[in-house]
């Protein structure tokens, strides 16, 4: 018998996850700019103020460093804060608190101070928001020890990652891609917490492994379809969690396909794609038929003009072309 499903969107799935967390644990609260009366800059928290009140749906002034730090402190003091930083672009203002407090306190204190804070932010380009509103820094954040970084790309993960993140004893950063909020689809009516330790094979294949996450997953799956039509069977791995990386799933797939393409919306040099390439060649060098290919964003502050932005981002055809190149 098939499980009952409901029509929903990525945005509604995130909201439902927030609502559930707020209902089930009184230590949970949401804090950030315009999460309350405005309803969330991308309407994710719309209606929650009315349901849970201003104590638990806390509007903050423009003070990223202070309210992110406040989330860290409140977590230490026994609460389960969900801090929303409107977009990753503005999180730079809170980076000292994230790296030097959230990620370091446990170790600096010799294991005494764990920091169960969850920080949500929107990431990514594709909406012509130009240089200061289009960064994809989630892979860059994945460099920081002590953090867990997750990137929901599906309705299931949008619905389920928050609950698991809240149970995590350490800081978790959730990156929601701005282009996914309106993603529509069916979701199991009983959908809930999901694993955040493993990558997922979203599409099985034999000839090449396409590795992606977040905002790049959909176009990577499209590329896989296109490759199929050409007789190249592509396996698509959704990283889901960028730190720690699930080497087993990545390497396991590449060992079978002998070819890989990493798709990463980050700027190419020093992006997470480089780390994945490094790990593949460290762990599966002799299984590779050729170099691992990378499809990343052009190394430019994202331009506004539509054709320039499109050219700066990984696209289906550039992914397909890279996959073809792996056949040499």
């Amino acid at each position, binding site marked *: 018998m098939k499980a009952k499903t409901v029509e929903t969107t990525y945005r509604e799935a995130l909201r439902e996850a927030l609502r559930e967390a707020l209902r089930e644990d009184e230590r949970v609260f949401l804090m950030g700019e315009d999460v309350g009366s405005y309803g969330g800059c991308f309407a994710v928290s719309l209606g929650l103020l009315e349901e849970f009140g201003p104590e638990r749906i806390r509007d903050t002034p423009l003070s990223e460093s202070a309210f992110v730090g406040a989330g860290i402190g409140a977590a230490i003091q026994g609460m389960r804060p969900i801090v929303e930083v409107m977009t990753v672009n503005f999180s730079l203002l809170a980076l000292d608190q994230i790296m030097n407090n959230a990620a370091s306190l446990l170790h600096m204190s010799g294991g005494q101070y764990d920091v169960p804070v969850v920080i949500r932010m929107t990431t990514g380009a594709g*909406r012509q928001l130009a240089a200061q509103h289009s960064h994809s820094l989630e892979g860059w954040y994945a460099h920081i020890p002590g953090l867990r970084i997750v990137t929901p790309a599906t309705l299931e993960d949008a619905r389920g990652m928050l609950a698991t993140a809240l149970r995590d004893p350490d800081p978790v950063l959730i990156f929601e891609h701005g282009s996914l909020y309106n993603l529509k689809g069916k979701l199991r009516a009983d959908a809930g917490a999901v694993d955040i330790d493993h990558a997922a094979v979203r599409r099985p294949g034999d000839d090449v492994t396409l590795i992606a996450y977040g905002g790049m997953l959909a176009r990577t799956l499209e590329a896989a379809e296109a490759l199929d039509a050409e007789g190249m069977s592509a396996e698509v791995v959704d990283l889901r969690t960028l730190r720690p990386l699930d080497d087993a799933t990545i390497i396991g797939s590449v060992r079978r396909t002998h070819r890989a393409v990493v798709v990463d919306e980050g700027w190419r040099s020093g992006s997470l794609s480089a780390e994945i390439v490094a790990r593949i060649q460290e762990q599966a060098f002799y299984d590779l038929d050729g170099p691992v290919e990378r499809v990343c964003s052009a190394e430019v502050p994202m331009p506004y003009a539509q054709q320039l932005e499109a050219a700066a981002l990984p696209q289906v055809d550039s992914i397909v072309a890279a996959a073809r190149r792996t056949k040499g």
Partner: protein
Amino acid sequence: MTADPLDLLGTMLLIRRFEERCAELYSNGQIRGFLHLYVGEEAVATGICAELTETDSVVSTYREHGHALARGVPLESLMAEMFGKVSGCSRGRGGSMHLFDRSRRFAGGNAVVAGGLPLALGLALGDAMQGRPAVTACFFGDGAMAEGEFHEVLNLAVLWRLPLLLCCENNLYAMGTAIAKEHGRTELALRAASYGATAWPVDGMDAIAVNRAAAQAVDEIRGGSGPVFLELQTYRFRAHSMYDPDRYRTKDEVARWRERDPIELLAARLRADGSLDDDALAATDARVTAQVAAAIEQAERGEEEAVAELTRFVYSESSTAAGSVR
């Protein structure tokens, strides 16, 4: 020295008509990205910029059409930028939130709230160190004052007596957050004064009052006073951005403020003292409306930047690093 009220009126009308058309163009998808309208706040940019000279500098925010127009950036290059055309003031790279015109020392739209303040501090420092009498005017909102950057910048500006004109556009909201939820003390001019800066509140709906305040502030700064902070009390008639459903304030509140429309206030005053009649007003309106229409036509015909140019301007053309961009 203060400006001719008729010029102020013309500039405010130009800003108003420019943005009304931008809103239409946004709705039919010809302008994209984020669009933050200044409608209702025109007296601020207009009154301030009228007191600035060519050698002064201006730093703005993402809500910057008014500042750019008041500064004298050609509306053709602004409209072309809204369209993302290569003839735009930022060659299509910036869009609404990043308008730049170096020839007019318009150092652009900064879309990170308070991010323009440290930059403006540096422009003022650079002028001061080179012994120029120039002033740098930096526009920012009531919300920006809560950011740490504001604190660091005002303290440094006072400490170093820098020629910085801090124009705080207090429109009572930061997106959907009312000022009472942004600041423990909402008397923003008093807050600024506590740093040792000259600071006072100004009716930001009265273009002449703003212009007088700007004249006095610029005078003091050129006289070596160090930074001056103006709290320009104004209101945004439209939503924060085109995305904003404007749920956080009442229709009444907006209606009450609309009764103090800066354009109508000034027009009424000029009518009263006989320096403006309906024909003159209609003529001005027709003129700016036509200018905007012409700019739109030109922008529509404008060329798109070639995709091959994508990696330009990451490094200067003269830099050996220019070739490294992939």
